[in-house]
């Protein structure tokens, strides 16, 4: 430890370290000591993460809006270069610390019930704790090597957890895909880190980015050598945060347990990309930022359109996640640094909640499926419907989360999303002209978000059970499940509401998270009409979309729940036609198109790359076998044939020998004397 730090700071740092190490300890204990399938493991991990959370709160309280804390210790020396291990606690890292533990805790608790009876129960918690360790470490480390290390380790944990049910072929394919696509980003990130090292001869984030000299250097340095690492970091983030074009692993990753999706593939790991961008934000040159904006914006839009037509519950949520991450990235790109982080935090809670709800639903559906021996996909929303009355808690929490996702006032999403859109408009204003398309697309995406999440809600919770239509004799017996399901969901639902983030439910500028970062980067004053415009968009669009959607699923409507809205759907005919023909159909077509693109072109391209790799592999094998080895064989063959030629003189006839000998002698003599 750095001895010059005051005692309290040392303590804070130690607390942070303990917070990080607790899950690791739990993980190791689970792996090594705890008997497999023992109940202990779940509680062990949960308590570990609880401890982490408590410590995180303490650390947070110490550090938030205080000067950053930094401590390091020599790790090893290579040549003249010292590589340190250290932690760097600033607003960003403590926020993430808190966020990760806060999201992880409910997921842990939830998992205790969710994974009950699985034959690899202990293993699951070991992995989960390991993930938490890696994630927590990722957010507090102070140097790029360690950052990279934990960056990969979270990916590794994700790999383990996606393929948790490794007997399922799809799960295994998915985890391979996830790891390899993440690796693409990792390699880019590594390259970026190494390029930075080549420029600055240090890995230390503090030296690199918390230092005005560096910033000055970056300003003056040869642009190329700064842009390039920046771009590399961006690619790393794109892969981790599942942005176009490296996003296809995330939907597939849903093969893992739902609780894992909730924690890793919704709340934390995928957000690590955004976190990375935030950590090295100084590095990005305007060009890179522009790319970031475009990619984020496009991904948000694209994923939203895809989500429109998915039938798999978790896939919809996965695309939703991609879309929201796109938002964050776009925010980063347009300079809405703090809003991006705000959205990150808010999104973590409500998306986690959505997944947990989905988990409960799937759990119940699976239960039904097994009980009645049905041949259905428990994740297909077409098989659901009307579950709301059996699962009230799930229903309500889900609605809250959905509203947050939409950005409905009084939820956290409202704060963060508005912030992003407003700043995007401002950014476009500054840039002028054509750039307006970015915020417009953002708004459009928001509308689509409303569309698909409504669809999800309605299809799952409202209307009649479609299963009942198939088998009328069947009696639905779904319920919310154990309190271990309910408590985490309620906790998360509460966290999805505005009070956690701001006292003012409409002004994102008042959010403490926003304030915590606003000074750090840009101060954007947004006191103009944008707020109003955006708010009105949000408020207005909800009924319209809801309307459109209710018509879309008209036949399965139950009057009880829609009676209020029934009057408003007065003009359903024209609007229905209108929407259905012009908007719904087209949008759906776009959705289909993007889905198709996603499936065939993008995934196809990736497969193509993979296949090309294998093809090149085959080619090299061929080269190896026939060309390189062939050359060797040919050489031996030549030698052998030469030997055979020489042997040809050995006829066994002495006169032939003599003849050859004399001839050679004559030739030698002639050559010798006459040439």
């Amino acid at each position, binding site marked *: 430890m750095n001895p010059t730090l005051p005692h309290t700071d040392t303590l804070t740092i130690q607390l942070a370290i303990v917070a990080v190490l607790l899950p690791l300890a739990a993980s190791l204990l689970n792996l090594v000591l705890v008997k497999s399938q023992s109940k202990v493991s779940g509680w062990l991990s949960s308590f570990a993460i609880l401890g982490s959370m408590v410590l995180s709160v303490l650390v947070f309280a110490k550090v938030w809006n205080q000067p950053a804390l930094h401590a390091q210790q020599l790790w090893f020396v290579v040549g003249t270069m010292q590589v340190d291990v250290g932690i760097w606690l600033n607003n960003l890292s403590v926020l993430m610390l808190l966020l990760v533990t806060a999201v992880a805790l409910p997921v842990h608790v939830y998992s205790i019930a969710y994974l009950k009876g699985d034959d690899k129960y202990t293993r699951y918690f070991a992995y989960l704790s390991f993930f938490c360790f890696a994630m927590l470490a990722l957010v507090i480390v102070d140097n790029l090597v360690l950052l990279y290390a934990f960056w990969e380790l979270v990916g590794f944990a994700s790999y383990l957890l996606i393929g948790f049910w490794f007997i399922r072929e799809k799960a295994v394919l998915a985890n391979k895909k996830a790891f390899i696509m993440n690796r693409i980003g990792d390699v880019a990130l590594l390259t970026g880190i190494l390029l930075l090292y080549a420029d600055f001869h240090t890995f230390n984030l503090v030296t690199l980015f918390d230092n005005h000299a560096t910033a000055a250097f970056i300003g003056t340095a040869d642009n190329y050598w700064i842009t390039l690492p920046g771009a590399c970091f961006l690619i790393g983030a794109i892969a981790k945060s599942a942005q176009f074009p490296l996003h296809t692993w995330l939907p597939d990753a849903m093969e893992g347990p739902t609780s894992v999706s909730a924690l890793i593939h919704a709340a934390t790991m995928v957000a690590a990309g955004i976190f990375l961008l935030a950590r090295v934000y100084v590095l990005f040159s305007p060009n890179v930022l522009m790319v970031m904006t475009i990619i984020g914006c496009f991904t948000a839009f694209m994923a939203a359109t895809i989500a429109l037509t998915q039938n798999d519950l978790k896939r919809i949520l996965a695309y939703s996640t991609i879309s929201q991450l796109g938002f964050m990235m776009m925010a980063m790109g347009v300079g809405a640094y703090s809003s991006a982080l705000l959205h990150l935090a808010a999104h973590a809670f409500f998306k986690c909640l959505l997944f947990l709800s989905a988990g409960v639903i799937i759990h119940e559906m699976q239960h039904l499926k097994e009980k009645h021996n049905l041949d259905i996909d428990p994740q297909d929303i077409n098989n659901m419907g009307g579950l709301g009355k059996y699962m009230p808690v799930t229903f309500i929490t889900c609605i809250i989360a959905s509203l947050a996702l939409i950005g409905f006032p009084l939820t956290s999403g409202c704060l963060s999303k508005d912030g992003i859109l407003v700043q995007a408009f401002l950014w476009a204003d500054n840039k002028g002209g054509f750039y307006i398309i970015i915020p417009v697309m953002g708004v459009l995406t928001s509308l689509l978000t409303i569309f698909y999440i409504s669809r999800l809600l309605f299809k799952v919770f409202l209307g009649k059970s479609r299963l009942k239509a198939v088998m009328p004799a069947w009696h639905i017996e779904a319920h919310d499940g154990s309190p271990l399901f309910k408590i985490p969901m309620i906790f998360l639902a509460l966290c999805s509401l505005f009070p956690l983030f701001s006292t003012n439910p409409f002004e994102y500028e008042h959010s403490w998270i926003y304030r915590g970062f606003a000074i750090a980067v840009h101060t954007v004053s947004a006191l103009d009409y944008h707020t109003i415009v955006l708010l009105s968009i949000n408020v207005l669009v909800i009924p319209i979309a809801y309307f459109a959607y209710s018509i879309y699923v008209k036949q399965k409507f139950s009057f009880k729940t829609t009676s209020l809205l029934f009057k408003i759907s007065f003009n359903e005919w024209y609007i229905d036609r209108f929407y259905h023909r012009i908007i719904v159909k087209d949008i759906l077509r776009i959705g289909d198109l993007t889905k198709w693109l996603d499936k065939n072109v993008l995934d196809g391209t990736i497969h193509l790359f993979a296949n090309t790799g294998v093809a090149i592999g085959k080619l090299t094998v061929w080269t190896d076998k026939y060309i390189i080895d062939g050359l060797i064989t040919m050489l031996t063959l030549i030698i052998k044939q030469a030997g055979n030629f020489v042997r040809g003189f050995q006829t066994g006839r002495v006169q032939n020998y003599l*003849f050859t000998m*004399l*001839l050679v002698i*004559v030739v030698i*003599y*002639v050559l010798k004397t006459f040439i």
Partner: protein
Amino acid sequence: MEQIVFFVLGFVVLASALTVAASKNLVRSIFMFFVTLFALAGLYVFALADFVAITQVVIYVGGVLVLMLFAFMLTNKEVLNNLQQGSKRFISLQKLPALLVAVLFLLILVNAIIKAQPDNLAWIQASAQSGNVISPTDNMVPNIGISLMTRYLLPFEAVSIFLMMALIGAAHLARKEEHKF
């Protein structure tokens, strides 16, 4: 006169040797070889080496040739006759390579000998001047005798062991002995 005899002898040597080469019949070639050796002995005499000439006659004609005849007789005649059926002509396709080499050698040798100008070699000139040349009147036998006992004593003695060894060996090879077991 002397010249004529010399050339006649030379011609006989070459002609008989050629006959040896051309002849299919082993017996004939052995006899023509006999002629060659005799003619050569004559040439030795012309080169003032009478003792060598005598030795030639004694050892070659008396020894080697007789040996060859014996060998010839010991080997089955019929087989040999069969061999002779092969080709009758002196120049046949099979012999072409041999002829080629022989002619090549001839060209080279003649060229080399003429280039060397043997009659004008420095040491021969010097010998001629210093009288270190054997004249027809010299009796070379004692000379050879002295040489053998002094200057060439070592080869002389060594040859005795050599001959002894050859004798042992040849006798071993030629002797017939029943299998002891």
